[in-house]
């Protein structure tokens, strides 16, 4: 029993990081129907910005988190303006290829700038081990990371569902061709979406760099995982991205725990295919309803 709970904590932590990345995929797809394959690399850049702020400027954790989210949001807006804006009405495939190009560019840029070594963002949060009950341990930083991640997701949900800009985002997701007639500035809404998606990915990057390690190509594998989580949850849906992420992390962790670590990816992805066969549009996705 203790082991199940311990593994559950492991899964929640992993799922929280997947979710922070998957949200950006899902939101961007909802707004402009683009599968932004550079998103995993934006997450990586966020992690490295956090690393530099922590190592070179030795800022406190809250400032690192906020400043990194802000800077990465700017990067997201810039990428959309420079690389995707002119292609908005082009064939979808051109946009996807451009996104892959942007991702490759970011990987190599970071590799040139900081080198290929594996690093870790120095611990900013307390590493104290808390013994919950017999056998179950959790470190304080783990709890904080899970807590902040979930808080960010709630804030996002409130923003999209309760504010005017959020309403405009939902409108753009619903029909990008009609909303300009209502006086909504589509370019601004698209920028806001990229900014939010990138900022969340940056938060994920910092948490990831604290708990695990970072290197310039880390965004590829994690980007794929988060993309798959978003699709399983129902791409375009915020709730779906979160649900899909926790499901993916849960399947991965429990495959290792009760089946075999050799089969981790094999079983995880086989199960995900089955989920998609049952829900072709993802668990929370609906064929043609509003998507954000």
């Amino acid at each position: 029993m203790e082991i199940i709970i311990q593994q559950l904590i492991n899964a929640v932590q992993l799922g929280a990081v997947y979710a922070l990345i998957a949200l950006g995929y899902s939101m961007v797809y909802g707004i402009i129907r683009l599968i932004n394959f550079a998103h995993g690399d934006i997450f990586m850049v966020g992690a490295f910005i956090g690393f530099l702020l922590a190592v070179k400027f030795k800022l406190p954790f809250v400032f690192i988190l906020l400043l990194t989210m802000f800077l990465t949001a700017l990067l997201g807006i810039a990428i959309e303006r420079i690389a995707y804006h002119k292609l908005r009405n082009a064939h979808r495939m051109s946009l996807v290829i451009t996104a892959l190009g942007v991702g490759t560019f970011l990987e190599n840029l970071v590799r040139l700038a900081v080198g290929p070594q594996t690093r870790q963002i120095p611990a900013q949060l307390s590493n104290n081990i808390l013994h919950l009950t017999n056998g179950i341990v959790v470190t304080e930083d783990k709890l904080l990371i899970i807590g902040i991640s979930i808080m960010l997701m709630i804030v996002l949900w409130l923003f999209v569902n309760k504010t005017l800009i959020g309403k405009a985002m939902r409108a753009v997701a619903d029909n990008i061709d009609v909303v300009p007639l209502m006086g909504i500035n589509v370019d601004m809404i698209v920028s806001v979406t990229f900014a939010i998606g990138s900022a969340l990915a940056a938060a994920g990057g910092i948490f990831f760099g604290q708990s695990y390690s970072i290197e310039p190509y880390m965004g590829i594998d994690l980007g794929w995982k988060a993309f798959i989580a978003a699709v399983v949850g129902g791409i375009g849906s915020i709730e779906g991205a979160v649900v899909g992420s926790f499901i993916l992390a849960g399947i991965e962790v429990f495959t290792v725990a009760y089946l075999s670590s050799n089969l981790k990816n094999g079983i995880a992805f086989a199960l995900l295919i089955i989920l998609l066969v049952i829900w072709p549009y993802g668990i929370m996705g609906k064929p043609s309803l509003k998507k954000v």
Partner: protein
Amino acid sequence: MGKIKVFLILSLLILVFVVGCGSGSNNSIDELKIGVSAPLTGDLAATGASTKNAVLLAEEEINSSGGIKVNGKMMKVKFIIEDDENKPETTATVFQKLISQDRVLAIIGSQASKCSNAGAPIAESNKIPQITPWSTNPNVTKDRKYVFRACFIDPFQGKAVALFAYNKLGAKKAAVLYDIASDYNKGIAEVFRDEFSNLGGQIVAFETYNTKDTDFSAQLTKIKATNPDVLFLPNYYNEVPLQIQQARKLGIDAQIIGADAWDNPELLKLGGELLEGTYFSNHYAVDIAGDKSKAFIEKYKNKYGEVPDAAAALTYDAAYILFGAIERAQKADPQAIRDAIASTKDFEGVTGTISYNEGSGDPVKGAVIIKIHDGKFIYDSSVKP
């Protein structure tokens, strides 16, 4: 307009291609060209840097003493260093390029077993001698006539670690976490499992992950439940600190041990205090160096400002095994050089004495056990072959 653009781009491509090839086919025989395949970028970039440092040091030394006498004429040595990114597929391309384009006499490399193993069939079929400094997986040289190594092999190393864990640490229950997608990690993990069981110990957990995984908490939680005396992590230095950190965070207090892929300054940079009191097997220990090793360590430190890791020391030895073979062959001919390498007897290297028995590319060498103490690698004990 469109056609002109296409034409311009095509001409440019052809130009680049022609110029690129032209520089490669320069087939002069006034220098001895030796290829080096090393992970200059990628996850083992620090090992790539050690490799490059070591061959450049050897090149500088041999050339400043006039070079090597071949066909009655002194010739300079020229190393051609290529980046294999620590990827098997890139290593194969690098070997192909070194052999067919640069027409090297021999190749040193690569470092990770999975890469050396990808290059070896190409060296073998082109009859170009290959010496890998650091690849300890037995398959690299197995059934190959042109492939040699400067290090011991994992059946020996895995046994040494198992003996150390069982006899010296008094461990009865051992757990292993290793990268199943990498030849080296998988090979030594399996040897350790078998040897530790043979000694009477119990393997309570044998868990795997895939290269580039960063979250090991599920496997470690499973390991923790088995309450092992030792945790064996036969993985590369860029991953080990993260594994130890996650193990400690989950409350695993078992003694942690490792193998030669730990030996790189990066390990200490990443792991810090977490590594205190851990042990690993290695090719040589800097603090008990003999005269030959001391001279090398001194020269290396002066030139590059850091203590050479085992990969650097073994690469340096590989270079001198090759220099000696070329000198004895007295010919710039791969076949003659191969035969001379195979007949190497009692070569005094930095990492010990190296002899090849005919028919095998594996030298018989001892290992050392290193303890990490006060942020330094300290010699603990020796293991005879």
